[in-house]
């Protein structure tokens, strides 16, 4: 009877906790609203640890409150000398052994989850996507070597399957974090490459942050993970492989300016991470530079003076005049090669 009651109570606390915490934060950003395999697993681990910790905390607080109320000095007691207790073996054994047991209860799922998230058993298998992620001050490069696609800032992945990420950095240490899909992993410079995997349950646009101090614009190194259905993902790959970077007549001058001024750093089409973000599908991006609302006005401001948006970034200011920037913007706004994910992006905008 008691055991059953205990389980019921534990279950109740557990579900109340879950309900309480899932009320926290914005959809597609909060680690408390898991939308992928990793974050789901970690959310459960978190709940187990919180439940154990709350159990301990309640016991501590019960003794604490009792002691403070019961044994506080009252008027007339000033000279009372309490018994000088040395200790109590039985009690001391109890509060040594019980915590050890509780920690073991937590240690087992911890080790399981740690190994689970480090699993690379299907990596390299037929049909399993591996994406190269490169952290740069202050933007992200995403390469799909198997499909000869390169892009930046928005990472497209199919839902319902594991996608492996091979991660490194081109400069300082960054950390790739999409709280609602998975935990974070550092991108290191040099040979300390890392691997993790993402598995999104639902379609959507998920917010990503850089989580390792990387310079003045560390807080502005946001990116998105756009999870689309496997069919749409295939469509997107096809769109990206058949990009036609030629501008329409109105934007022809913009394209010339781009090729003369921007191309050195900002590639269009497949290629390794350059000095600056890849522009192939720029007009499909959810944000300019990861944080700015996509409008032509903002884009022109950004091109002329990026420092004002992202302090310390590598792109030189006043490389082109405002008029030229406007023409370049016209060209860049034409680089929308795929409709995939657009509906999800719009949904996000509405939510805000």
């Amino acid at each position, binding site marked *: 009877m008691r055991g059953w009651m205990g389980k019921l109570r534990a279950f109740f606390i557990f579900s109340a906790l879950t309900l309480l915490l899932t009320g926290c934060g914005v959809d597609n950003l909060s680690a408390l609203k898991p939308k992928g395999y990793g974050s789901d697993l*970690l959310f459960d681990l978190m709940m187990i640890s919180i439940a154990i910790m709350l159990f301990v905390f309640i016991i501590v607080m019960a003794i604490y409150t009792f002691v403070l109320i019961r044994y506080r000095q009252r008027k007339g*007691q000033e000279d009372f000398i309490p018994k000088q207790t040395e200790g109590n073996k039985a009690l001391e054994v109890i509060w040594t052994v019980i915590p050890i047991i509780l920690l073991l209860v937590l240690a087992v799922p911890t080790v399981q989850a740690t190994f689970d998230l480090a699993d690379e058993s299907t990596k390299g298998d037929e049909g399993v996507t591996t994406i190269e992620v490169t952290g740069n001050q202050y933007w992200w490069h995403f390469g799909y070597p198997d499909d000869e696609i390169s892009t930046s800032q928005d990472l497209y992945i199919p839902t319902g399957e594991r996608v492996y990420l091979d991660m490194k950095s081109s*400069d300082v240490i960054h950390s790739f974090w999409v709280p609602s899909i998975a935990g974070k992993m550092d991108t290191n410079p*040099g040979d300390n490459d890392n691997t993790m995997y993402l598995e999104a349950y639902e379609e959507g646009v998920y917010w990503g942050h850089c989580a390792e101090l990387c310079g003045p614009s560390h807080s502005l190194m946001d990116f998105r993970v756009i999870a689309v259905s496997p069919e749409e993902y295939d469509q997107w790959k096809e769109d990206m492989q058949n990009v036609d970077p030629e501008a329409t007549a109105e934007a022809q001058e913009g394209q010339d300016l781009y090729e003369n001024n921007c191309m050195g750093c900002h590639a269009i089409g497949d290629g390794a991470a350059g000095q600056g973000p890849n522009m192939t599908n720029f007009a499909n991006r959810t944000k300019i530079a990861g944080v700015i609302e996509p409008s032509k006005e903002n884009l022109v401001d950004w091109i002329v003076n990026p420092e004002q948006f992202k302090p*310390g970034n590598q792109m030189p200011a006043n490389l082109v005049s405002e008029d030229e920037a406007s023409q370049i913007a016209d060209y860049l706004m034409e680089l929308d090669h795929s409709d995939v994910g657009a509906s999800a992006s719009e949904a996000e905008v509405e939510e805000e």
Partner: protein
Amino acid sequence: MSTALAQNRGLGAMIWDYLTTVDHKKIAHLYLVAGGFFFLIGGLEAMLIRIQLMKPDNDFISAGLYNEMITMHGTTMIFLAAMPLIFALMNAVVPLQIGARDVAFPFLNSLGFWLFLFGGVILNVSWFTGGAPDAGWTNYAPLSTVSPGHGVDYYVMGLQISGAGTLIGGINFLVTIVNMRAPGMTYMRMPLFTWAVFVTSALILFAFPALTVGLFLMMFDRMFGSVFFDTAAGGNAIIWEHLFWIFGHPEVYILILPLFGAFSDIFSTFSKKRLFGYSAMVFATVLIGFLGFMVWAHHMFTVGMGPIANSIFAVATMAIAVPTGIKIFNWMFTMWGGNIRMTAAMLWSVAFIPSFTIGGMTGVMLAAAAADYQYHDTYFVVGHFHYVIVGGVVFGLFAALHYWWPKMFGKILNEKLGKLAFWPFFIGFHLTFFIQHFLGLMGMPRRYWVFLEGQGLEAGNLISTIGAFLMAIGTVIFLVNVVYTSVKAKKVSGDPWDGRTLEWSIPSPPPHYNFTQTPLVRGLDPLWVEKSEGKKGMTPAEPLGDIHMPNASILPFLISLGLFIAGFGFIYQVDNKAWLILVFLGMGLTLGSMLTRSLKDDLGHHIHKEELEKDLEKGAGE
């Protein structure tokens, strides 16, 4: 604080006295003033950070300045505020608790202080010479090695110099506690504070060299063209993280253990009971110190060490919760059945238990390696370590200062003002940091200069900022209390709290030779043992006789000043080799002073029996 002294002998004489003193009680004053000053600077930096994060997309301070602010806040609070304030307590109390007349190496004690102070000053000079360090207090390579300007150079030189001071202090206390205990003061009769300082000193001895090595490598990389951390040239950036945390994790215990000791003494005194489970407490302290070296990589779960290393460090980290839990229960059972007096010191100690328990619990949550992939480098971590460091170390410092203030200065800090300072600080503390756990889980990484609108982070950050202002108010009230007490309060006897340990058996403040006659220790809580047998004070272990004391010396100041000057030479020789002249000047001063110290015999002086008898007649020996 020493206003009486100043009036007697003039300001100049007092300054000279403090510059040359080797008396542990005066060095404690120096540490207290310097540490307190840096605590205020660090607090000011914290307020600027919280104002910047008061609302989304704020531009109160620029991104670059913000990074300097967080770096200096962390570095200042850990190295220049918490460490010296702990050293202030160690100096003020430990020799008294073991019945010694001074520390084992009084000259080194002074040297340790001046090295720390000059190191701290170097670090803060960077604000005025083109920018403070900006790579975080952890100073990860390669962000630090490529950081433009001289900010990180100041970090390296400042911490190297002040770290040497800390190392010297640690060794000094280790030797003091091993060698200088009064007759009968066996290890298992030492007060818990002394025990904690003993373990802490051992941690300093083994942890700081890792930092020293790391800082040297960083110094060579930045100033002399080596490539230890430069991956492009075959170096490895991750090595810095390991070196830093091999030092950095024990550092956390270096900070908290002495306060655990102080809490133990306070709980025991104000419950009028001996410490519950004394031997378990000692064992737990040693165990925490030992395990503290086994867990550094839990700061690096997301670096990519692999699941095996992550799991080992996760389980090892969880193990620390066991001795810490033992301590929490022993403290509560010390109070159980006691006669609890809720003084200001006790109030801070009582508030510490739930606060630190929360910090410990989030610590166990963080130890779960996989779950740390979500917590790591977010505000969850910021919330956690502030619960440990503010809820543990800062609460402990306030408690210990209230407790030992009469011993240090002969006056009790005003109790009403003490409690008035407590409440806004306590409430503000929980307001500031509790919500940060949730901010982290809701997707706010730490060290973020701005957070964007529409991410659900506005309310939490605003609450956090409001809490920070309450903490500032509490701190100001405490300062008012210090001034008020030194002006208004009356002198108290040597034993105002009905104390249990040796420091309460001598006058407040103690004469500079501490004990007229070395006391004979007959058990744990030696003064309590004597009191419970109806005696007024300790039984002496020796007849009244001449006391040998060390001489004051300006050399420690000069040695440190030399390194201070040389520090600037090292930093700026990168720009122009002419600056090397400062290196030669400074090192010349340092080495010259060391040579003087080595060649010149300094045999100290004696305090004669007649003077002691005079002091006794004046009532100092009661």
